[in-house]
């Protein structure tokens, strides 16, 4: 952890690195002077005049440090503080520079725009194990609940390098990208862990055909930056842009898009490295079994190295909402949203703990001017408000009630207009708590045929309340049927129930989650639905096969393409029939 995060105030007051905004400078200056006055008076009156001299190094140090940071903000070196030596003009100029001059709007010699992160939140490249002299590393995912010791981390920079490594070795292999799955899908004990984030190039782009070919280690945010100047937007992706494309393909993700569904619907073709190191091209017509086995296939049959994706126009979209009760949602959705050509994003949020009131949020196409200054979502260094709300909703009395009746109504007062790319550019960092050691936020997801929405919602609500699950949010999304992937979670038109909840990290708490998760899976399967696989592997093998009846086909394909069971991770270690 950096000093900046560990001791933010000391970092601000006593280091001259980085940049600060005008507002921060005013606040911190007020703080410095008022503190100096209080301490000076106290020491003077209670101890003696001599004692006040101890304050001077602190005063001068903090004034110097904060002023230097402020000068940096306008791309000036701290040496400009010497201007104070010129009588009258120097102090006036400095006063203007420090208190009023706007900072440079972009990254400069001295760092990024204050409070703006340089990049999306990233997971580490494998933690070192103290005092261990091997290449072993701990690979964990964003929840920090699934640490796995791997034999070595390998980060290929070219496809050939990757193929060579696969060809020349025989042991187990696990593959990871952004590592935002939440159940160990990116690691396996003592495997060779391949970190795909080095393969992050754009290979081909056609503005006219609206397609882009990219390496699988590229992140969605990188693609957004590339295509945004061409007024194009990714056809299907998830809301958060930190993830790598390869990871999103392996879980066959979805977003909040209307009229779309699983990511497979926006994939034209891909290249995949098989267990023997061979490179295979796959599409719906060329090697279709590889295509349908690899997408949503959790790296079972090979490593996806590149992919060709569909793009769409980058439109401005305006947020609208409608408050309603759960029994009215299906009709509302069917009548007003499902076939509405203007609707671009949609989600329905259910308020815990009763899950009877909902807020349906739809972003519709608009020709109005966006209300945000930037075309892509600016990244922030910290999300104190988001963090506070998450804490308040989950840890305080009536937190949920306040959210439903006070906070959300205020947040939804405005009618923001964003770009399509902007609205798909969220940073996972906004969900990050201060610490994940005692409690952590986790996702789960259930897919239910649209006609069984009410039945499943009732069962879900009953289970959550019986187990006192600390649910933050249940968000409803819609998806059209999958085009044929073996582990398709949308075998017909479904509603996705995205559950975001908080849990403790003790073993007892983890077991408790496993118990109610299995009940929820039964509830989903009983109405012909499924649960989502990138999360913790709590489901029994029997539940897994009932939810994914075509899993057998994928297992057979894996047997053929990966006869030595090289591609491992928690998913395959749990459910694959070993030879």
């Amino acid at each position, binding site marked *: 952890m950096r000093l900046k995060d560990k001791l933010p105030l000391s970092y601000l007051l006593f280091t001259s690195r980085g940049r600060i905004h005008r507002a921060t400078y005013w606040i911190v200056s007020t703080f410095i002077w008022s503190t100096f006055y*209080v301490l000076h008076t106290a020491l003077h009156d209670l101890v003696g005049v001599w004692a006040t001299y101890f304050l001077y190094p602190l005063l001068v140090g903090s004034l110097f440090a904060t002023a230097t940071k402020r000068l940096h903000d306008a791309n000036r070196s701290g040496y400009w503080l010497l201007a104070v030596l010129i009588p009258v003009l120097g102090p006036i100029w400095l006063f203007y520079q420090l208190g009023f001059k706007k900072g440079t709007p972009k990254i400069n010699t001295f760092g990024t725009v204050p409070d703006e992160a340089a990049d999306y939140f990233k997971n580490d490249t494998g933690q070192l194990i103290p005092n261990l002299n091997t290449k072993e590393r701990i690979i964990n995912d964003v929840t920090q609940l699934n640490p796995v010791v791997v034999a070595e981390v390998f980060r290929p920079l070219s496809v050939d390098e990757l193929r060579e490594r696969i060809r020349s070795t025989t042991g187990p292999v696990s593959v990871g990208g952004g590592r935002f799955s939440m159940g160990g899908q990116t690691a396996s004990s003592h495997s060779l862990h391949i970190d795909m984030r080095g393969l992050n190039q754009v290979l081909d782009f056609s503005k006219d055909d609206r397609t882009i070919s990219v390496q699988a280690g590229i992140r969605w945010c990188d693609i957004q930056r590339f295509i945004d100047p061409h007024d194009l937007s990714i056809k299907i992706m998830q809301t958060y842009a930190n993830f790598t494309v390869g990871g999103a393909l392996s879980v066959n993700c979805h977003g909040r898009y209307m009229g779309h569904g699983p990511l497979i619907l926006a994939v034209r073709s891909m290249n995949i490295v098989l267990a023997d190191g061979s490179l295979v091209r796959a599409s719906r017509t060329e090697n279709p079994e590889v295509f349908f086995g690899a997408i949503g296939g959790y790296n079972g049959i090979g490593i996806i190295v590149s992919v060709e994706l569909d793009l769409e126009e980058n439109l401005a979209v305006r947020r609208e909402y409608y408050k309603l009760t759960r029994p009215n949602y299906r009709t509302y959705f069917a009548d007003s949203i499902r076939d509405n050509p203007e609707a671009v994003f949609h989600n329905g949020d259910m308020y815990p703990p009763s899950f009877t009131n909902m807020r349906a949020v739809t972003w519709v196409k608009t020709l109005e001017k966006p209300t945000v200054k930037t075309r892509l979502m600016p990244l922030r260094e910290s999300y104190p408000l988001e963090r506070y709300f998450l804490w308040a909703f989950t840890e305080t009395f009536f937190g949920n009630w306040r959210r439903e009746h006070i906070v959300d109504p205020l947040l939804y007062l405005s009618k923001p207009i964003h770009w399509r790319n902007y609205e798909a550019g969220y940073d996972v960092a906004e969900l990050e708590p201060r610490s994940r050691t005692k409690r952590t936020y986790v996702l789960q997801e259930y897919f239910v045929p649209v006609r069984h929405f009410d039945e499943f919602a009732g069962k879900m609500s009953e289970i959550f309340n019986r187990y006192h699950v600390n649910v933050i949010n249940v968000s409803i999304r819609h998806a059209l049927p999958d085009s044929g992937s073996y582990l398709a979670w949308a075998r017909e038109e479904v509603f996705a129930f995205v559950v975001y909840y908080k849990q403790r990290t003790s073993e007892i708490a983890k077991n408790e989650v496993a118990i109610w998760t299995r009940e929820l899976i039964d509830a989903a399967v009983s109405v012909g639905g499924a649960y989502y696989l990138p999360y913790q592997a709590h489901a029994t093998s029997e539940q897994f096969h009932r939810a994914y009846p075509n899993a057998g086909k994928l297992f057979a394909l894996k047997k053929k393409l990966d006869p030595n069971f090289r591609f491992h991770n928690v998913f395959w270690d749990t459910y694959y029939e070993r030879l």
Partner: protein
Amino acid sequence: MLRLPILTVLMVLVASFIFLRKGRHSLTIPAGEGCVVPKDWLVSNPHPVTPVEHIRPADQTFLTYPEWFLVHSPAEIADYAHVKTTTTFPYVSHIKQLWQSYSVVYDQIKGSFPFNTGYHIMIWVIGVSTTVEYAMKSLYETIVGRLTNPTHGEVVTDEDKFNARFAQDYVDFIRVSPWYEFDFASRIPALLSGTSFFGTHFLRKCDRKYMLLTELLVKAGYGYLIKLGTKASYDEALPTTAVIIDQLPTAITTGRPGSVSPTKTYADGSALLLLPRYEAFHPAVSALAQQGVTFREIAGNNSALLLTVLAPATWQPASPDFRLVFTQPILTKPGLKRVALVTQVKWLDKTVRFVNEQGVKIEHVYDY
């Protein structure tokens, strides 16, 4: 980083609390709550005999106090600068005395006279300017000046001596003329040529040169602007104060040299005199009072009149001829206090004789 704003608010609250409590009751001590002057003293003269061009509003005897405090205060600085460097001068307490006394004198006239907008604006302009000046000086002296200050604050460097001289010249000047007429600019070459660059207390010399240069440059510029502003908004002030006395003293009737000759005499023996205004007014008044003269009107007014005296801290005056308004300790001269008295024009001679008998020095008579 929500902690910083919260801490800042807390520290500002604590600092304000300490600042406002300090010297709340000890820097300016009012004689009582609100108005302590009898209401029948607070009236304008309905039928003034004084010619109209010499008449000034009756409430101005009170409102000129804050303005004059800004002469008393530099006078105190000048006295102090001869013995000690001004680094340890209690600037902040003087800011407080200024605003506290403004509040006390305003309490006396509030409700008895219509609001004198022009005068209040002028007080605010000079009050805020002085507050900023003193606050900056206090800040600078606290973080720089006190670190370079010679032991016991002795006036040893050329620059500190220059400062003492400058402070004295300045106060002598503003006793008779508006401050903005002072020639600050010509002091700059005097500062640079009259002091050596190197020498003992080298840091002190640099620090003082920087500070004095800044002060002279800022005051020269600000004075120029105020001069333009004053010319545009206020009429040129008369340099005299018209008084009507009941009878001419023998010194005048016999035409003794140095005495003021009457501008006009009236049938009942009373006479109109034009006395010098500002600093020279109170010596002239004292001289007349000693000759047994009684005043009927001063600047057309026959009601309340404010005067301040400098007295030992133990002095407790009492007389039916005046009321005590407030006292202020002279912070740089322990044992001495400023006492503000209010009398009526007709009793001014008695009051002046009373204080003279007590051996107390009149600081100023506020001639409207």
